[in-house]
C-alpha cells in the first residue's frame, strides 16, 4: 500500500560520511553527559554523610546494586515540611555533625525554594517528591557481583551502622561516593 504512492528511490551513490560522523558524535555526547556531570559534582562538591537503611533487589539492566533509603527520605520527618504535590522539587538543608568522621549530617529545614543563606557548616540537598518519598539521586549504589552477599550480610547484621558518603554541588545535585558499614569501606 505504501509503495504504491511514493516514487521508487534513485540509487544513492554519495557516501554519507558527514551524516555518519554526526550520528556517532551525537551518540558519544549523550554517553559522556553522565561522566561529565558526575565529574563536576565530584570536583566542586562538599562531602556529606547520611545514615542509610538498605533493601536488596536485583536489577536486570544494571547488574547488582543496593537500594538505599534514608531518614530524610520520609518527607514527614523533615523539619518544616508541609504537604506538597507529587513531582515537587524540595531543598533540604543539612547540618554538619560534631564528629565529622563518624557522625551523619542531619536535616534542619526543608523548603520549596532554594535557601539563599547557609551557614558554613550547612549544605543544601535537592530532592524530588515521588510516591510519598523524597528522592535525592542517592537511592542506589552499584556493587560488584562477588561483594553482593558480603555486603548484604553486613547490612542485615549491622543495619544501624550503615552510612553513605556523597558529594553535593552548589545546585544541590548529589552523587554517591562510598558505602561504609560498621567501619568497613565499600568504594566502587
Amino acid at each position, binding site marked *: 500500500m505504501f509503495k504504491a504512492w511514493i516514487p521508487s528511490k534513485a540509487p544513492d551513490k554519495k557516501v554519507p560520511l558527514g551524516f555518519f560522523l554526526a550520528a556517532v558524535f551525537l551518540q558519544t555526547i549523550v554517553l559522556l553527559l553522565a561522566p561529565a556531570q*558526575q565529574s563536576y559534582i565530584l570536583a566542586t562538591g562538599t562531602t556529606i554523610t547520611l545514615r542509610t537503611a538498605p533493601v536488596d533487589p536485583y536489577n536486570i539492566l544494571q547488574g547488582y546494586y543496593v537500594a538505599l533509603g534514608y531518614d530524610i527520605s520520609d518527607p514527614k520527618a523533615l523539619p518544616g515540611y508541609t504537604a506538597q504535590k507529587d513531582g515537587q522539587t524540595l531543598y533540604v538543608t543539612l547540618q554538619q555533625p560534631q564528629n565529622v568522621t563518624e557522625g551523619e549530617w542531619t536535616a534542619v529545614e526543608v523548603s520549596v525554594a532554594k535557601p539563599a543563606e547557609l551557614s558554613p557548616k550547612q549544605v543544601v540537598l535537592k530532592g524530588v517528591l515521588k510516591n510519598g518519598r523524597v528522592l535525592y539521586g542517592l537511592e542506589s549504589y552499584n556493587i560488584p557481583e562477588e561483594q553482593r552477599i558480603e555486603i548484604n550480610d553486613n547490612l542485615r547484621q549491622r543495619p544501624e551502622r550503615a552510612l553513605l558518603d556523597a558529594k553535593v554541588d552548589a545546585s544541590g545535585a548529589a552523587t554517591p561516593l562510598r558505602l561504609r558499614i560498621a567501619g568497613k569501606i565499600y568504594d566502587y
Partner: protein
Amino acid sequence: MVSDPSSQLSFRQTLKKELPLWQERGILDATQTQSLHDLYQLEDIATKANRSFLGGISVLGVSLVGLGAISFVAANWQWIPSFWKVVLLLTVMWVAQGVGFYLWKIRNSYPVLGHGLIFLGSLLYGANIGLFGQIFHLQGTFYQAFLLWAMGALVMAYALQSLPNAFLALGTAFAGYLSGIGDMPNASSPGVLFTYGAWFGLALFWPLAYSLRSDVFYSFLVLAFGISTLVPVLQNNWFFTSSSTLLFATFLGILISLWIWLSSVLPLKDGKTEFRSGAKNLAFLGVVLIGYFYSFWDVASQSVQQIQQGIPWGLWLQSGIVLIPLVTLISGIVWFFKSVDNPELKLEAVAIAIGASAVLVPILLGFGTWLTVVWVNLGLLTLAAYWLWLGLQQANRRNFLGGMGLSAIVALSRFFEYDTGLLLKSLAFVVVGGTLTFAAIWFEKYLNRQENLNRENLKQENLNNV
C-alpha cells in the same frame, strides 16, 4: 493505467517454478519465456533471497556474539578504573561503527557485514547507556535509558538509511514510552512529552518510513502509534485502575488477535477463502507478544494474585469492547469449522489456539505461578516448533526464521530473568548466536537440496511422459 511488473518475491518465485512447465506444455514458446524471465528479473531471485536471509541471520548472529562478549567483559571488570572503562566502551563502539561504515559505504565489499556492524554499534551504544549508568551510579529510570537509546539509533537510521536501526529505534522508543507512562507519579498529568508522545513519535518516524520505502516498518510504526495513543486514554479508564487490569488487557488482547486471524480467513466472494497474510501475521504477533509477556515470573505471579481476588466477568461483559469481539468470534469459529476444509488452514487454527490457550488456560483454570510459567513457556515453544516444521515442510525461510527466532528469544529471556551469573549469560549468548547462524546455513543447504531433488523429479516425470 499501466503499472510496473510485480516485485513481490513469492510471486516471482512461483513464476520461476512454473515457467518451465508452461514451456513444456507448449503454452509459451522459448522467446515468450525469456521475455517473462527478463521482465520479472527471475535470474536474481535465488541469490537475492539467499542474501537477505543470510544477511538477516548474520546480523542476528553477530549481535548475539557481541552481546556475549559484553557480558564476558562485564563479569571481569570491576577492577579497571572508571576512566579506562569509558575509553574501552567508547572504543569498542567506535570500532564497530567505523569498520561497518568502511565495509558498507566506502569499500562496499561486504555491505551485509558492514551493515551488521553498524547495527552492532547501535546495540553497543544501548549497552553503554546501561554500563555508564552503572559505573557512575546514575539514578535514571528505564524509560530515560530507553528514550536515549532510541534517539541514538534513530539518528543512525536517518544518517545511513538503515532499516535495522530504524526498527531498533522504534522498539526502544515504544518500550521507553510505555514504561515511562507506567512510571509517571501522577497519571492525570504525565507532562507534555508523554501526553503527546505518540504524536512526537509519529513526527520523528514517519519521514524515516517514507525515505526507507519499507512497508513492514510503516506497518509497525502505525501499530506502535495506535497502541501509544490508546494507552493514555485507557490509563484513566476504570479497568486500568481496577485490580484486574492485567487480566482484562490480556483477555482483550487475545480476543482481538483471534478475531483478526479469523477476519483474515473469512470468505470474500463465491465462497472462496482469501488469505490475507498481513492480518494473519499481526494476529500471531499479538498472541506471541502476550504469551512472551506472561512467560516472565513477575507477570505470571501478578496475574495469579489478580485471579485470586476474583475475575469481574460481569463488569467485563457489560463493556461492548469485550462483548462485540466475543460474540462475533464465537460465530466466526462455528462458521470456520462448518465451512472450511483446508487441512493447512485447520492446522493453523490449531496453532493459534495453542498460542491463545498458553495464556487463557492458566487464567481460566486458576493455575499457580509455577504451573503458569511452565505452561506459557511450553506454549511458546510449541508455536516455535510449529513454525520450524512449517518452514521445513513448505521450504519457507520466513517461517523457519520465525521458529528459530522465537525459541532463541524464549531461551535468552529465561537466562536473563533468573539470577544467573554474567559468565553463564555470556555463554548463553554465544551458544544461541552460534546455533542460529549454524541453523541458518544448514537450512540454506537443505533448501538447495530440496530444489535439486524437485528438478530431478521433474526431469524424471518428463522422461516418463515422453
